[in-house]
């Protein structure tokens, strides 16, 4: 009962933040309400018994990614664009189409029987780290994926630095041209 009350409170906050993202005028307000939505989603992860994913959500999503987004919005000064309308005429067709798609998926979800399996404990830090790094017990699949994610993050960082370099170093025009 208590879990349901907590879930309803967090779900209302999450959906409210998402609606603020959809209807906000300034990108900065949208980013801040997206942070609120992600923090309440982290609370829901903790409520569902996977605190490690919740902590990663707070650190990476609400911390790093949204900090980067807010920083770029402030640097590019998106307030200059507040004169352009939020939606255009195509949205008249997009809104009913996506809402009908969501309704169809909702009917399929409600008519499918499934329930929580409360017997086993999962999502703890010890179990997650054992699954990721104990290659004798769980095979090499997750460990190789982990290494691949490291490579992906490194290449994304290099690509971002290369693409945004001309703004940072305005003097080395000849050096930036070789890329």
């Amino acid at each position, binding site marked *: *009962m208590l879990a349901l009350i907590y879930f309803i409170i967090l779900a209302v906050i999450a959906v409210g933040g998402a609606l603020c993202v959809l209807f906000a005028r300034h990108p900065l307000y949208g980013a801040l309400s997206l942070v609120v939505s992600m923090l309440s989603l982290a609370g829901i992860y903790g409520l*569902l018994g996977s605190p490690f994913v919740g902590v990663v959500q707070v650190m*990476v999503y609400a911390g790093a990614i949204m900090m980067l987004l807010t920083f770029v919005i402030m640097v590019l000064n998106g307030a200059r664009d507040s004169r352009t309308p939020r939606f255009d005429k195509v949205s008249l067709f997009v809104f009913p189409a996506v809402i009908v798609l969501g309704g169809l998926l909702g009917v399929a979800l409600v008519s499918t029987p499934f329930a929580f399996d409360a017997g086993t404990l999962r999502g703890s830090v010890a179990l997650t780290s054992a699954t990721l790094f104990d290659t004798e017990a769980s095979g090499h699949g997750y460990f190789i994926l982990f290494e691949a994610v490291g490579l992906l993050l490194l290449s994304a960082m290099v690509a971002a630095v290369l693409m945004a370099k001309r703004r940072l170093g305005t003097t080395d025009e000849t050096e930036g041209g070789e890329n």
Partner: protein
Amino acid sequence: MELQAVYVQILALILFVIGLLTAISRRNVFFVLMGVELALNAVNLSLIGFSKTLPGDLSVAGQIVPLFTIAVAAAEACVGLAMVILIFRNQESVDSDNYSGMKG
């Protein structure tokens, strides 16, 4: 009245629909990126909720995959924002309708 597994999926569906609407119908390119992030969050929530319905060892994958999703979303946001900076320097606009320079 306990917390049912369906409620979590319904919440994930609502968040996914809102994120998809934001990504498709908003014109500001920052809102497009934020809608993509919101939809990714909703899918993470759905995976966590479904992994609690499976018994035992089967359910560990549903706890591991969201971690990789979050890492890939971090890489995507990094490259996407660098591309936004690059385009904004050429176009001086964040309206995604102005980015149709590749149209023939």
